[in-house]
């Protein structure tokens, strides 16, 4: 399987993936054909098959992997910019919320083809998402709260992002820095075992 990551930005694979994302944002996964993607990427169907042997399924897999990489490298950047634990939590929440809300292909699928994505991430499979996010974020949080506490906090915050994304609230907008900060200060920081700070 070809590795498609941020290091491949600008390659032909990445161009095809970007074209496919635009198609999904317009028509959804079900109705997007490889012909559509080829036309959008200005290449031939044969090229797509050469890049993604296996066709549409392989392309969808590559899209998922690329988009996750993109999401996590953006999150890493936000974490690196943060000065303290509060900034890190607030920055992570705001970033994740905006990345999800602003992802046109994802939003189309959630709105019109939820049956495609929810079985992979909701309810009994939410732990996949929680574990992935917690696993990624914990090392960044560990210097502030200790290793044990870090994965607990990371999962906690991941839950917040999921609930406010899937069921938006009237008075809380986690894509808004001030609102997210109030949420973190009010409900999260008091629940941290700060004595674990080295």
């Amino acid at each position, binding site marked *: 399987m070809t590795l498609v990551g941020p290091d491949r930005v600008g390659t032909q694979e990445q161009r095809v993936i970007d074209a496919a994302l635009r198609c999904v944002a317009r028509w959804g996964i079900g109705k997007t054909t490889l012909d559509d993607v080829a036309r959008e990427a200005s290449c031939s169907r044969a090229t797509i098959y050469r890049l993604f042997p296996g066709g549409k399924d392989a392309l969808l897999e590559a899209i998922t992997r690329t988009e996750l990489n993109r999401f996590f490298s953006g999150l890493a950047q936000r974490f690196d910019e943060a000065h303290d634990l509060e900034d890190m939590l607030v920055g992570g929440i705001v970033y994740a919320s905006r990345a999800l809300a602003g992802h046109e292909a994802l939003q189309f699928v959630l709105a019109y083809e*939820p*049956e*495609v994505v*929810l*079985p992979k991430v*909701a*309810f*009994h*499979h*939410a*732990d996949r998402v*929680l*574990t992935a996010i*917690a696993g990624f974020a914990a090392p960044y949080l560990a210097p502030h709260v200790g290793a044990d506490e870090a*994965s*607990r906090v990371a*999962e*906690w915050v991941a*839950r*917040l992002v*999921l*609930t*406010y994304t*899937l*069921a938006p*609230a009237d*008075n*809380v907008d986690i894509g808004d820095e001030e609102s997210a900060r109030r*949420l973190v200060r*009010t*409900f*999260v*920081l*008091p*629940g941290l*075992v700060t004595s674990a700070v080295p």
Partner: protein
Amino acid sequence: MAVDLTVRERILEAGFACVARYGLAKTTVEDVARASRLSRATLYRYFPGGRDQLLRDVIAWETGRFFGRLAEAVAGAPDFPSLLEEALLFAHRAVEEHEVLQKVLQTEPERLLPQLTVESERVLVFIRRFLVPYLEREELRPGVEPEEAADYVARMLLSFIGNQGRWDLSDPAQVAELVRTELLAGVLSDR
């Protein structure tokens, strides 16, 4: 048109029985008519949207019953933290032991989960309304309003009922720890 609630209830109950037997994809209006001993015409009078509406309403009805049972189970708790602990323990067990839910989650999650996600907004309202009176009796941390705290706690409860993640929600000690920290540390005053 007069809507007879007992008839509606009878149809929903029969619909639930059919889903338990055949699953969401295979249950037809015909099946539910037979199971409820009513005519197809009567079913369409109560559910003009036909099969899709009927199944949507069956899911909503059972979700409502689930949280009704949960509310009833915890209503007698001695204090607010214990109420939340009992709620998590009860709900976690009830989800695991809910045979129809587990079967549908295994075999046709793509049909159930979009609906449950839609339902979750209504469930949040229900839990919030249930929690507010309790929170109004508690001493809250400065600056925290009962409504806002109820929304936060409702979301956390629902998140943990859906998936326990790294916690073991069948262990009362872990549940107590979870409630003390992630649910209530920012809500209740220390005193």
